């Protein structure tokens, strides 16, 4: 899914604290690089789903 600006969106689910956020590509990269913004747990690319895939069904 893209927002009105045409930017990719992803759904993030923290494997530790359970925080869920809809993020853009730059935030996804930052979360993988720096960890969950809420609890600090390491984040993997597998903790994201493409929002467009979630909407497809």
């Amino acid at each position: 899914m893209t927002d009105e600006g045409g930017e990719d969106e992803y759904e993030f689910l923290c494997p530790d604290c359970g925080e869920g956020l809809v993020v853009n590509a730059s935030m996804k990269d930052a979360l993988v690089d720096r960890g969950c913004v809420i609890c600090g747990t390491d984040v993997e690319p597998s903790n994201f789903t493409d929002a467009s895939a979630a909407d497809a069904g």
Partner: protein
Amino acid sequence: MSIAQETELGRKEVDDFLSARETGVISMARDSDPYAIPVSFGYDSSDRCFYLRLVSTPESEKRRYLASSPMVRLVVYDESGGEYRSVVVKGSLEEITREELTAEHVEQYGDAKRPLFEIWGRDKSELDVELYRIDPDDVSGRLVEIERAEV
């Protein structure tokens, strides 16, 4: 024990001191009631802002203080080899909501350690984790060198 020398820390010394530390004590007040807790923080020397994750439960005393958007003071201090360094930060707590989060915020909170002093012992579903920033009105640092008498 006597004070041999007391000097004010310069901007770079303050930045270096804060960048090397991750915990301090934050104090706030509501009416005439004081409240102080140890916190972990991340410090961005480029904008001189502090980034904190504060954990509370809905019914907690902390939540009541945080809800009042209080003015705060953050004290970070250290003692080593007869030298005491302390930095006092004055400002207000600004909450960063989930909707406001940007990639830059994620980077900045990456420098804030997990909340060491917080109450993670409880089930996380019972906890509110909120993100806060302090954009200080004033930051001051001091170095005190102590002379100890030989025994």
